[in-house]
């Protein structure tokens, strides 16, 4: 709780710092403050008592996700030092808004009341609406902000309708009460409850960009400033999923809602992966990749067991680390290519900046889920869970299997690695620039890359017990799923 307060205050402090000409202090102060908040958070480890009349509960689940969220924000602030270096105005505001948004994220990880869920989502979103429009000279940015706002508010309407209907049938906003009520036979048969759950899930699905509530995703990713896009695809996504899972974790969802989740999952997997095929803008590609990853994460929700939250956490963390790294790379490459965001700017990266290219490759490999990277283990564990939940071929998930990642790899990568195309898009002077930048920021990327590999190479501890009943066709299928990456 004190972390929540500290971060809110930190935002205000940064705003005041922004009044003077103290721009270079912003990120350090922000990072120090975040680390302090993290410490406070950790001091309260295992204090699981609900706070404020059961509005928030900082249990292990919330702690883990909060930690991840704060660290990701720290990483993004580090990124921000360079990113905002040549920006004149509104830097303090942007940092502050990210912190406010983070507060919303922290509420989402720990809410125990539907009102806090709603407020959390709003506090998470409203700064984002503004941040997405933060690029001054870009029409697309403003448009992205507006689209995001419009669709976000629209989705909020559905979320509210859902919460209202749930309240109507249970007379409570308390998560535990609602969850208990859903489990009873009266709750199962109640039409209001069914509609309420439906709309609540629709509302939250919007935040995680599940099909068909994903439309904002590509436009906003493309239009928003890169740092904000990185923030959205990591912190926001993690928080939204944490909230989503918290919402339905103990619920015994009615079969009909389950069916709808399944349909959403399948649609998300297919659309995310297929549409990624033709994307040439890096950010749009990342957006569709993010949608595809949403699909994977939704698989987890289809069969919830006591290990689900661990897998969710693992997947989101690895995904986020890789994503942050890639956006840093994008910023570097984009700068060298004078603002171009087409994936062709990665061509010849290996020539001009071999280590950066290798780091990029690792990050992409991880996103694509290639063996020996964290992304692979994460996907693998998702599948393992899905299989346990007996979801197998019935739903045809494997048809689309992260092809998005594969495409990402295909589009982004061979160009950067094959010498044949090494005649650079990043020409001579730009190449020096890239070098200089890499010296400065490279450690960040390398750190992220190392994280990816390191997390990936230690899959065993909680990777799952072999005693579980296993269905071999599914594993054969997952071998198939290895196939596209086997290049």
């Amino acid at each position, binding site marked *: 709780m004190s972390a929540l307060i500290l971060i809110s205050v930190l935002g205000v402090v940064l705003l005041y710092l922004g009044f003077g000409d103290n721009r270079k202090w912003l990120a350090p102060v922000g990072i120090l403050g975040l680390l302090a908040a993290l410490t406070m958070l950790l001091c309260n480890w295992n204090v699981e008592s609900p706070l404020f009349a059961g509005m928030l509960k900082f249990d292990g689940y919330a702690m883990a996700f909060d930690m991840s969220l704060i660290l990701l924000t720290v990483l993004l602030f580090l990124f921000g030092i360079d990113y905002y270096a040549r920006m004149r105005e509104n830097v303090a505001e942007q940092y502050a808004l990210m912190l406010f948004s983070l507060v919303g994220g922290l509420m989402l990880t720990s809410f125990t009341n539907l009102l806090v869920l709603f407020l959390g989502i709003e506090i998470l979103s409203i700064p984002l609406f503004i941040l997405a429009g933060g690029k001054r000279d870009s029409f697309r940015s403003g448009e992205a902000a507006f689209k995001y706002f419009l669709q976000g508010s629209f989705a909020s309407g559905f979320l509210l309708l859902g919460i209202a209907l749930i309240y109507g049938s249970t007379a409570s906003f308390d998560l535990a009460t609602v969850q208990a009520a859903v489990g009873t036979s009266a709750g199962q048969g109640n039409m209001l409850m069914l509609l309420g759950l*439906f709309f609540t899930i*629709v509302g939250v699905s919007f935040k995680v960009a599940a099909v068909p*509530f994903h439309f904002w995703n590509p436009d906003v990713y493309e239009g928003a400033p890169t740092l904000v896009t990185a923030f959205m695809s990591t912190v926001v996504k993690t928080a939204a999923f944490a909230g989503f899972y918290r919402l339905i974790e103990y619920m015994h969802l009615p079969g009909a809602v389950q*069916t709808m989740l399944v349909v959403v999952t399948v649609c998300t997997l297919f659309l995310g992966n297929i549409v990624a095929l*033709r994307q040439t803008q890096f950010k749009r590609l990342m957006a569709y990749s993010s949608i595809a990853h949403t699909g994977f994460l939704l698989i987890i929700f289809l069969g919830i067991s006591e290990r689900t939250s661990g897998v969710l956490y693992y997947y989101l963390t690895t995904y986020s680390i890789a994503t942050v790294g890639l956006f840093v790379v994008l910023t570097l490459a984009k700068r060298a290519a004078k603002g171009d965001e087409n994936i062709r700017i990665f061509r010849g990266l290996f020539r001009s900046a071999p280590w950066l290219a290798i780091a990029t490759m690792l990050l992409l490999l991880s996103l694509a889920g290639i063996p020996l990277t964290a992304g692979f283990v994460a996907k693998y564990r998702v599948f393992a869970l899905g299989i346990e939940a007996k979801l197998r071929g019935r739903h045809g998930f494997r048809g689309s299997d992260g092809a998005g990642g594969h495409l990402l790899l295909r589009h982004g990568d061979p160009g950067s690695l094959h010498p044949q195309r090494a005649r650079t898009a990043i020409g001579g002077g730009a190449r020096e620039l890239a070098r200089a930048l890499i010296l400065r920021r490279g450690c960040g990327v390398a750190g992220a890359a190392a994280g990816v590999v390191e997390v990936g190479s230690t899959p065993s501890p909680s990777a799952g017990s072999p005693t579980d009943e296993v269905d071999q066709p599914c594993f054969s299928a997952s071998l198939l799923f*290895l196939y596209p990456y086997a290049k």
Partner: protein
Amino acid sequence: MVMTDLLAVLVPALPLAGAVLLSALRRKFSATVAGSIATALIAISFVATVILFSGFDTAAGGRTVRVLDWLSITGMDIPLALRIDALSLTMMLIVTGVGALIHLYSIGYMHDDERAPTFFAQLNLFSFAMLMLVMGSNFLVTFIGWEGVGLCSYLLIGFWYTKPDYNYAARKAFVMNRIGDVGMVLAMALLFHFLGTLEYTAVMENAHSIPAWGLLAITLLLFFGATGKSAQIPLFTWLPDAMAGPTPVSALIHAATMVTAGVFLVVRSSVLFDLVPYTRDVILWTGTATALLAATIGLFQNDIKKVLAYSTVSQLGYMFAALGMGAYSAAMFHVTTHAFFKALLFLAAGSVIHALGGEQDIRKMGGLKGSIKITFVTFFIGTIAISGLPLMSGFFSKDLILAHAFQHSPVAFGLLVFGAVLTTFYMFRLLFLVFYGTYRGKAHAHESPLTMTVPLMVLAVLSVVGGALNLPHLFGGHEPMKHFLESAAAAIRSEEIELSASTEWILMGITAVLVFTTIAFAYGRFVKRTTLEGDEADMPLLKRLIAQRWRVDELYAALFEKPYGWLSEHFHSIGELRIMVPLQNGVGEAALRVGNVVRKLQTGNASFHLLAMVAGIIIFLVITLLSN
């Protein structure tokens, strides 16, 4: 870890280390230094392999070295493990031994290339991948090597990437290999489905518990995978094009090692194949057809390396024919001798090309036997070895296959003998046109440096005496290689030739007579009076068809490339541009163009997205309500 285990790990680890080291420091090293390092590492691997080999006890059957737990999740246990048994040792000896010679040769051959360190790094990487392929203790590790060699082959074929043709060849090789790989992956998936494991030992022990259709599917798919790597019908067209790579690459990858991976895979899985006679028939006839088809094409090729490439395809056809007849050890024997003499031929051809400053057209050669003596002698030895002149290594291995064929199916025997005759003809045509007669080119021929000729000499000796490895009873031997391999693949035990000694002598006699007659014919045709092929347009139809390689490439283009290109083009132009794009952002784009003036406060495609959202919600709501 036991000493032998350590050695076993060392064998693939050294080339890998070399690959990493050389690519990291590729700017620091000169060609010679890089080459020496690469060669030394692979040579040490060879020594390690020899030590392993000498300490190997056939009675024990082989051991598995578990390097690390790789995938061990929920019932799926696939370790990264190496298997040391007779089969992998044989292949390891070939890969590291012949590999070391070719590395050595490359020092001279690549001397002037500024990217030589990269070349050696990739060559080392290839050796690593090939070793993983043959040493893997389960299908997945093999598959890693399998993909690795494909990748290295791609990189090395396209090594001189400035020429678009070469890149095309590299891509073609890669794509063809990938098509085959689908088979391999599906086979693996099926195996896992039925047995829950991919370990060779476990698979082979439990093979009989797989239902018949499963076995049929698995073996056919594995074979399909093998056709990709080993350039069999229908996936053989990449190999001749692969000659775009530097000649040592052709020798190592596209003659001695990688292309035999398919043979290796089938022998590795021989237990499965023995259970499905139908698949074996498919393999036999595919092999025979490939052997003949490639041999005919070889008759009229004018590029020295293309002739050798078709000859390789043809010889691989022999190996597969042998596999189809269940003569696994005969196939492995041919793999071994072929590695010797085909590597020799390629390297000698490389030496010729080197001597002539890059000329590959045999119409512009001739009369070289005086100027480059060592090359000539070694090439000569290679030629008689591949033609199967009595007592040469190729003689023994080919005759073994022919004997099996005679016993198995006289038709196959006849076709294969005919193939052997064709082989003799085109090989001697090549020999005569290159080394005899008068010189028809302009460059000044000079003998290659010692680093190139030494490997030639070593390989020449091996090509001559290689037959001793599996000396048949007829010649007083006791087929040591067959007995050695028996410990790895039980199926080999049942592979006996039940022909009487006299029949065998007669068969050998017939082949020998045919071979000698052919040589005489070729001598008359190409030495007495040098007959050069004219323009394709003047040839009679059949000959033209052959010279145009039976137009297989064109057939594939018409059958697959064009329809596929058409499909993707139209999917793109109609599906993508007219449907998907408008759906995705078309409304917005249109608004952007049409309504720039009135755009002021309008929301563009946002409302379309909202509409789609509402539609989605309604549909899902209906689904939810209906399923309630």
